[in-house]
């Protein structure tokens, strides 16, 4: 039997003077992962956009449990989103969406 891959859900807060949409946030994270770890590393992260919470200015993404620290490093190194200066902060990490919503 193939073992199911463990995932981690991350809630991200984007600090930017310009409004940003969820797609550009995921693109920025993916570009940063590729810049730091290459396409091979990016293929192991299994990054996915889960949801966007506009009232909290938060984006929830999920990644492979094994690549969590690498994804966090990539998120921390982001300096712009959509060509505009921005910073991203991880406000919560959890193994389930239910637990993540309680944390953030």
């Amino acid at each position, binding site marked *: 039997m193939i073992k199911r891959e463990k995932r981690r859900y991350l809630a991200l807060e984007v*600090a930017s003077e310009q409004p940003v949409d969820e797609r550009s946030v995921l693109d920025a994270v993916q570009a940063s992962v590729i810049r730091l770890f290459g396409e091979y590393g990016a293929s192991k992260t299994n990054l996915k956009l889960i949801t966007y919470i506009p009232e909290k200015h938060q984006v929830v993404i999920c990644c492979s449990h094994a690549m969590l*620290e690498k994804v*966090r*490093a990539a998120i*921390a*190194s982001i*300096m712009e989103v959509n060509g505009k200066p921005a*910073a991203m902060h*991880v406000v919560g990490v959890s193994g389930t969406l239910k637990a993540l919503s309680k944390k953030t």
Partner: protein
Amino acid sequence: MKRFADLHLRVPLEDQTKAESMIRKASELGYSLVGIPYSPQTSRKQISQLKQICNDAKVDFAARLNLSPRNPNELLQSLRRYRRKFEIVAVRCHTKDVARQAAKDRRVDLLQFSVTNLRKRFFDEAEAELASQAFSSLEIELAPILQLTSSSRIRLLSRLRREVETAERFRVPITVSSGATDEQLMRGPRDYAALTTLFDLPMSSALRGLSENPWVTVERNREKLSPNYVAPGIRVVGRRTND
């Protein structure tokens, strides 16, 4: 729960609004101690304003002095003059002589090296051995890693990987700080810890570099600066007054 510290938050002293927003941001990100550098010529009014802002934001304030001496004599003179006025003394080593002197002097808390000119990073095995005996820490700033791009970042990461390995081997404490000059360069302690994995610093050492190591440095110096301090392990517990 870990108490995190950022020993190098470079707030602009002349712009109080920006200083306040940076200190508040540090508090929001989860830091309970910030080290703010200022020159010995800074007015007392500005320092008390900074302390007040930190107090309001519920962040502990640590006075930090950054020294950039040109030779070992200048370093010794500055240490003699200013050591008792600051809680943290960091030395940016531009020459090998200064680096060696700073590493063996117990009055120096943090050793800093150039991030742009890698030929001026003198943290080798000899430096690490001296630093481990004098309890000085290697300070790694993470703002330059965010700011540098492509080949210069690659070279810096490669150099840091070698230095971290040497520091771990010689048991030199590593202090991780932001060196942030604005809010865009500020990140939470766990994000910084994740960033240090880029130069193979183990996660546990990274978290220690953001919590225990800076706190130990500040608390040790606060004890030394207190009027009751006599020598390591000896302090005045009470005074008899002769009326």
